[in-house]
């Protein structure tokens, strides 16, 4: 699924990072617990989280992830956006809850990592 399709489905907005028309992702992992995110071996997934602090960006960086979808209408701090930009991470925000965003994306074809 392309990133632009994802953004549209969750009524989201891209806050930083360059997204090409062909850029896409196949897998998702939704969690507010960063240690759980760090247990996932693969790196080709989008992180859905409601954790709005620099550690969610750091976790994505360490996990070698390219996309974060920040849910529950959270507004990331300027430090978060700056760190995401530095790390080449695309930060997307959505007003939907984690359950709703995950459900919509799952129904549209995104897969869970396990």
């Amino acid at each position, binding site marked *: 699924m392309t990133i632009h399709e994802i953004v549209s489905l969750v009524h989201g907005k891209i806050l930083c990072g360059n997204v090409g028309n062909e850029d896409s992702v196949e897998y998702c992992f939704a969690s*507010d*617990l*960063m*240690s*759980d995110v*760090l*247990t996932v*071996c693969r*790196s080709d997934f989008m992180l859905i*989280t409601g*954790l709005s*602090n*620099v*550690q*969610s960006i*750091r*976790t994505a*960086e*360490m*996990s*070698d992830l390219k996309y974060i979808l920040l849910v529950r209408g959270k507004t990331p701090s300027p*430090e978060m956006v700056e760190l995401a930009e530095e*790390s080449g991470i695309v930060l997307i925000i959505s007003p939907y809850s984690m359950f709703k965003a995950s459900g919509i994306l799952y129904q549209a074809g995104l897969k869970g990592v396990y």
Partner: protein
Amino acid sequence: MNLSFQIQGGDFTSAGTASSQVRRTLKELGVDASVIKRVVVALYEAEVNVVAHAYRGTISAEISPDKVFMKLVDEGPGITDIEKAMTPGFSTASQEVREMGFGAGMGLPNICRNADVFNIHSVPGKGTTVEITIQFK
């Protein structure tokens, strides 16, 4: 190549800075991406542990052609029961740590899973030393 960093207990904004620099260095050295992920996940968990539990600490990373050896030495309350601390899900983390997305009791098991060699030594009331070795191949 040797890298070293100082860590301040409770400084959650900076937590991960050292791991980020080690990641950048390993990338520049052309280390395999899956190995880099194991190194930085283990180091990041250990770094967060120092920030979450200790007063202060140091990290040193010795990068050689075939492996990286990382040592974290902290001054802090130490761990009275290491076996218990290694149990997935067991945590003594504060509410503040949990609000940062950590403290779910997965830190030490996560480090252990990613390391080729993992040593932990702690003196209650003094501090904890963690050693992590990861081979590049």
